[in-house]
């Protein structure tokens, strides 16, 4: 009896002395960047910005693979589309980008898009109706190209630029198309009043999946991220993402029920582009659209599809956000102010993480030149201004930190620059004073809830000499 009491006391003591940061390590969050310079032909510029991506503490870089730029304009006699060594292919720019990314310790995500003319379907309308590369990309041809792509970056393909120096780097992540719910990326979306794009895309996805896994068994195939907003009308040029996903995964209705599905979709990772026209915590107005805080509308569909055999192979599907951004002012007079830009970045990462998203890719690293197109048609969402100066968002990306009050506690969330201890500090009249200490695990994400005074105050996280941007804790109550 005494022993039992002692054991119980010890267990109680062990539970009592557990520090908040010593709780089960929170899920990780990989951060990625996309940028036009990554895919450019200027190798020196690309290498410089790849190094800056690493300096910003990115884990991933998204590299666009324009199929129509790598494949020949017309397949010559004897062209073997599955053979990436075929001389009709031009891989030089992509090889350089993959090499540069891996050299910086960044993990490339190869996103395939835009079919060559000869791999599009019959009865092609004018480019004004269906932009080049978007008309019925033929699944069989896409599969052949995907096989060549995956084999080239399987870790077993000799680097043609450095003979004898070893193979080209191995790539794990392949994304099949992008924003295929928009007519600027895939056509046709509709045939009369029938939604056809999701069915065609399913055939494309499955062909690519089988080919990529055949060439590179360790690869992970990512569904193309959909654009967040659609037009809930027959014949529109933008399909609402909820409609697209339901149709892709053979589900019907708002309480999705499975329907016949002879060829279920095959993928390893689900994805979406939850670009937001408002603040990160504010969702889309239409229930069929999916913005930053609405990702649950899609994850529930994917879970239902997995449970009913409509998403294969069986097993949980990680969910990624493959495009998110806000333009900043400056330079864009219509963007959001720099501090808010940085805050939106941190808060969007938290919003997505808490919905189970495992990776987020921010577009872009560097502001684009407005050129003749103007600010309204170019990305001014960079972590850096065009001339190379860092914005506050650069600091937020490298050390995101969010503080929210709720249920009598203050929630502190962030991703530390490295694993290990960090301190959360509170702003006082005399400077920054320690508020609590937190342990960031190997995934670097930390989450604690602490007791805090009722009034408004500012906090920041600090690890060594690196400090996050300050976050404001509002006065009063309110759930995070």
């Amino acid at each position, binding site marked *: 009896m005494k022993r039992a009491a002692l054991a119980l006391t010890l267990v109680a003591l062990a539970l009592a002395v557990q520090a908040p940061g010593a709780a089960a390590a929170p899920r990780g969050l990989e951060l990625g960047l996309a940028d036009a310079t990554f895919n450019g032909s200027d190798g020196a510029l690309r290498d410089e910005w790849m190094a800056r991506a690493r300096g910003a503490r990115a884990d991933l870089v998204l590299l666009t693979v324009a199929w129509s730029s790598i494949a020949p304009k017309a397949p010559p006699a004897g062209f073997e589309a599955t053979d990436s060594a075929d001389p009709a292919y031009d891989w030089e720019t992509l090889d350089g980008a993959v090499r540069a990314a891996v050299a910086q310790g960044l993990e490339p995500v190869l996103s395939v898009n835009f079919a060559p003319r000869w791999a599009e379907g019959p009865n092609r309308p004018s480019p004004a109706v269906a932009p080049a590369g978007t008309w019925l990309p033929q699944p069989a041809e896409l599969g052949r190209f995907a096989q060549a792509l995956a084999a080239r970056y399987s870790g077993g393909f000799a680097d043609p630029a450095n003979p004898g120096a070893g193979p080209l780097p191995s790539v794990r992540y392949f994304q099949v198309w992008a*924003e295929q719910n*928009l007519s*600027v990326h895939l056509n046709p979306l509709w045939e009369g009043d029938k939604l056809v794009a999701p069915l065609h895309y399913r055939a494309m996805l499955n062909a690519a999946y089988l080919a990529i896994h055949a060439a590179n068994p360790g690869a992970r195939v990512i569904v193309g991220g959909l*654009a*967040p*907003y659609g*037009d*809930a*009308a027959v014949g*529109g040029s*933008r399909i609402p993402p909820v409609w697209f996903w339901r149709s892709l995964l053979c589900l019907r209705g708002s309480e999705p029920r499975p329907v016949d599905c002879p060829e279920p979709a095959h993928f390893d990772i689900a994805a979406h582009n939850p*670009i*937001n*026209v*408002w*603040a990160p915590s504010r969702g*889309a*107005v*239409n229930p069929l*659209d999916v*913005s930053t805080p609405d990702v649950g509308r899609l994850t529930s569909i994917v879970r239902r599809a997995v449970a009913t055999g409509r998403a294969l192979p069986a097993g949980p599907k990680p969910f990624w956000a493959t495009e998110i*951004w*806000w*333009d*900043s*002012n400056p330079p*864009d007079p*219509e*963007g*959001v*102010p720099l501090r*808010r830009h940085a805050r939106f970045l941190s808060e969007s990462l938290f919003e997505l993480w808490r919905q189970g998203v495992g990776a987020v890719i921010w577009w872009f690293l560097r502001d684009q030149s407005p050129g003749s*197109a*103007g*600010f*309204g*048609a170019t990305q*001014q*969402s960079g972590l850096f201004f065009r001339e190379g100066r860092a914005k506050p968002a650069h600091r937020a990306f490298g050390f995101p930190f969010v503080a929210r009050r709720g249920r009598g506690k203050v929630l502190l969330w962030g991703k530390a620059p490295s694993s290990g201890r960090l301190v959360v500090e509170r702003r006082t009249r005399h400077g920054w004073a320690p508020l609590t200490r937190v342990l960031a695990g190997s995934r670097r994400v930390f989450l604690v809830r602490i007791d805090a005074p009722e009034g408004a105050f500012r906090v920041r996280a600090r690890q060594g000499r690196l400090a996050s941007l300050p976050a404001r804790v509002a006065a009063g109550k309110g759930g995070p």
Partner: protein
Amino acid sequence: MQFKAMRKTTTLALLLVLAMPLPAGAAVRVVAPPGNSEADQYYQTLPGATGPRAPDAEKETRDAVRDGVLSEATETSLRQRGPEGLALATVVAKTAPSGVLGAMDRGGSPPASSAAAVRAPDDQGLGGLFPLALALTAVAALAFAVARWRGLVMR
């Protein structure tokens, strides 16, 4: 005293009417990400009286300034508040009654605009319930006011 009580009741009734949700058709129809007004794929279309469509929010706010509905300073100030500000400016632009604020010709009188708004075929607005609710509220407020007034006179 009696008039004061009546005034209170009337004010309450007016507040009730004003507090009712706006029909969807009277709301902003489209919101683009801040700074990407020309991007044609990332705007959010909100349900409207004529179904989903994509008018130019920027253009609407610019027109509102031009037509005197919004002063340039106010519009600039709202715009500096980011997407929320732009949305607010657009709401002001779209919901300004043409007859009252004068210059903005929106192709119809305020009653006509309201009638168009309640014809919304979508499921976001109140549809045909809106005028009914409006009328019921007005009748209830009037009845309440009369009852109060009578009670006060009798006493």
